[in-house]
């Protein structure tokens, strides 16, 4: 029947909207900026520019997504990133080889993240409070390492390589970001480990009863999250050529904003890697475009907040009828 066809058609359009709504919103934002600032926003240079700018947010938000996938939160990611940058910079200043400057902090953070998970799973403590406490502790350690001051003197040139260099006119940072996104997308979607993480997040008791080692998998998710946060911090220090004791703190809320925005995309209601990527991209593009449009600072906030809310609402349109 004709009517049925129409219904089918419109309902599959709605379905598309529900799944890709946030992505559509992102495209819409890009279109707007491109029309308003064709000469500066819609340029290849700027695409590269944005891809580098969002790289930190994407990386740290990937970690947040892993922990959210098992139904927990890690509020220490900001502090972890700051500490990571500081550790790497201190090592670099003290003349250690580059690989050690990167791997040692990553190894340390792996342990710290695992401890986060261990406290949560062993004592059944809410992750919210555990990681808040851990974040405070890490902040103290960072402060102790730096005396609160930015580290920038005597940082060797090689330390800046990853953060500042390009390959084929594309920043290395952008490559790293893309590589990690694809890697974790693969892990989460196509490996048993990823499926287990999602199962735990979906129904912990059922997963345990099905024979999944809930504790170990959760601990690993926390450990990976900490490693990603630390990597973000290290790369940020490399990019700035200096390590501030609070450099990562500002990433914490945007990271969760990205992950939650992502939850409205692709797999509804489930934290997912590409969703997080799109979420981070939207946040990054908004900041970039609004600066280019020279919107006054207070209006930028109002616009950003409104667009984020609008983007998620947009995606719910027609939900009832489906």
């Amino acid at each position: 029947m004709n009517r049925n066809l129409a219904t089918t058609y419109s309902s599959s359009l709605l379905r598309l909207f529900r799944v890709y709504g946030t992505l559509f919103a992102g495209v819409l934002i890009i279109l707007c900026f491109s029309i308003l600032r064709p000469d500066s926003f819609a340029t290849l240079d700027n695409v590269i520019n944005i891809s580098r700018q969002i790289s930190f947010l994407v990386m740290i938000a990937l970690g947040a997504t892993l922990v959210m996938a098992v139904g927990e939160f890690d509020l220490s990611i900001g502090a972890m990133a700051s500490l990571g940058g500081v550790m790497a910079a201190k090592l670099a200043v003290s003349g250690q080889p580059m690989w050690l400057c990167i791997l040692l902090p990553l190894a340390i953070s792996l342990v710290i993240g695992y401890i986060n998970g261990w406290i949560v799973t062993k004592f059944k403590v809410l992750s919210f409070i555990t990681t808040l406490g851990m974040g405070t502790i890490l902040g103290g350690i960072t402060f102790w390492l730096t005396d609160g001051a930015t580290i920038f003197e005597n940082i060797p040139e090689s330390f800046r390589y990853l953060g500042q260099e390009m390959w084929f006119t594309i920043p290395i940072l952008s490559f790293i970001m893309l590589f990690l996104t694809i890697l974790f997308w693969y892990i989460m979607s196509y490996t048993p480990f990823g499926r287990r993480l999602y199962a735990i997040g979906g129904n912990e008791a059922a997963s345990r009863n099905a024979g999944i080692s809930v504790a170990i998998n959760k601990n690993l998710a926390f450990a990976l999250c900490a490693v990603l946060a630390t990597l973000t911090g290290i790369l940020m220090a490399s990019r700035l050529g200096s390590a501030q004791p609070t450099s990562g703190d500002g990433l914490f809320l945007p990271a969760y904003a990205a992950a939650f925005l992502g939850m409205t995309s692709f797999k509804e209601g489930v934290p997912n890697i590409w969703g997080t990527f799109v979420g981070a991209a939207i946040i990054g593009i908004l900041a970039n475009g609004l600066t280019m449009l020279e919107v006054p600072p207070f209006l930028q906030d109002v616009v950003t907040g409104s667009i984020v809310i609008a983007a998620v609402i947009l995606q719910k349109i027609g939900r009832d009828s489906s």
Partner: protein
Amino acid sequence: MLQVRDLDKRFGLHYALSKISLDIHSGEIHALVGENGAGKSTLIKILTGIYQPNGGKVFWNNQETVIREPKTARKIGIQVVHQDRQLIASFSGYENLFLGISYPKQKLGLGIRWGAMKKEADQLKSKLGIQLDLRKLAEHMSPSEKTMLEIMRAAMLDCQLLILDEPTAALSDEESELLFELINKLVAKGTAILYVSHRMNEILRLSDRVTVMRNGKIAGTFSTKEMSKDTLVQLMTNQTSSIKKQMQKTSFSNKENVLQLKQVTSKDQKVKNVSLDVKQGEIVGIFGLAGSGRTELLETIYGTRHLKTGQMEIQGKIVSSFSPKHSLARGVILIPEDRRGDGLIVDMSIRENMTLSTLSEFSSIYNIKNQKEKTAVRTWMERLQVKATSSEQPIKELSGGNQQKVVFAKALLSKPILYLCDEPTQAVDVMTREEIHQLLKDQVSHDSGVLFVSSDVQEVLDISDRIYVIHEGEIVAEFENEAVTAEQILQVCYNQRKQSDV
């Protein structure tokens, strides 16, 4: 094969199990029966490593075994379908099937071979003869589909002992038959079955031996052949059953309508063109096969599902506002099918749950009258014999059947004129089931009406004055419950299905 000796389990100070001893032989179907809260599920949870016992020993193939976690149980060959569904809502049927077992992996690398996984699952599906769209997410499956999925999952791995905790509670007769076939196939291969059910007919028909539990203790193990329904019930309660069923026929033609639907269609087309009526004092049964839209019909009447066209009258008044709140104000209540999902707040106490929909009766705007509330709750707990330590016990600590009783008490507290009952007696023991029937009959004698949905034809026949048969959201037949038989009703259903298949 499995020997249990002197098992104890304590919750706080309360013994849920004491000195339980039980033997299960390979290749037998061993039934486990008992009142709600007798400790059946607790025993199963110990056997599958979810709880640890406080005392006693378990021997598996003559070796003392400690089942420390669910993983251990699965490894040694004990598979289980729990009373509460254990699925990951956001996963598809396929993914749920492979939960906790090793996925088929690529030769090189770590990736999952989805193709192989699907093939394996589909093979199993056709082997078991189960019809189920495995691509669907678990959250979109109906209770019966979820059960079938769990049964499939248990059958995925080779198992020596399969434990089924009230598997048929949410299944229709047809699906139950499928399950029985499957059970017989497994038994033929030497698998032992531990079968928990409140449906005595199934027990008598299926099992070789039956163990009766009473108050956390074993009342005895018997060969099923020597058992009858009455003796079983007697063993369970330790008293002779007094409830006598009798059907007195009344004429309803001169009574007023409590509910009348005229060509009601829901927005999502799950309910189509339904016209029906329920008169004062009448219990109207609705029967249909799984997925025929019974739940949806009740939800549409109750207001949780949107109505598109048609007209609804309650006590002769045309209804224009649809929401649970309005329904309750009109005196319409729903006993939902999924009691944990839609009926109860499991973290709250019995008291708080029971008075939830009638809170205003026990309170002014600025406070709740504690004494009044407690008295009412206690009264109803006694009337329905809810087995709990106190009215303050959280719902999640109650056995399945006792949870259902709380749902019922909540409904009764609001003194409704129309009951919409969706599988109200699932998971409820025989005695309570009779009590619930009796309760409903008492209620209708005060001029209220009942719309009663059950997957059990016999139950529908036992209780209803009139029966509608529903198929794909449409009413296809109506019977006065006088000379009609279960076969006749089922016949209508199957005929309809054949027609729509053509």
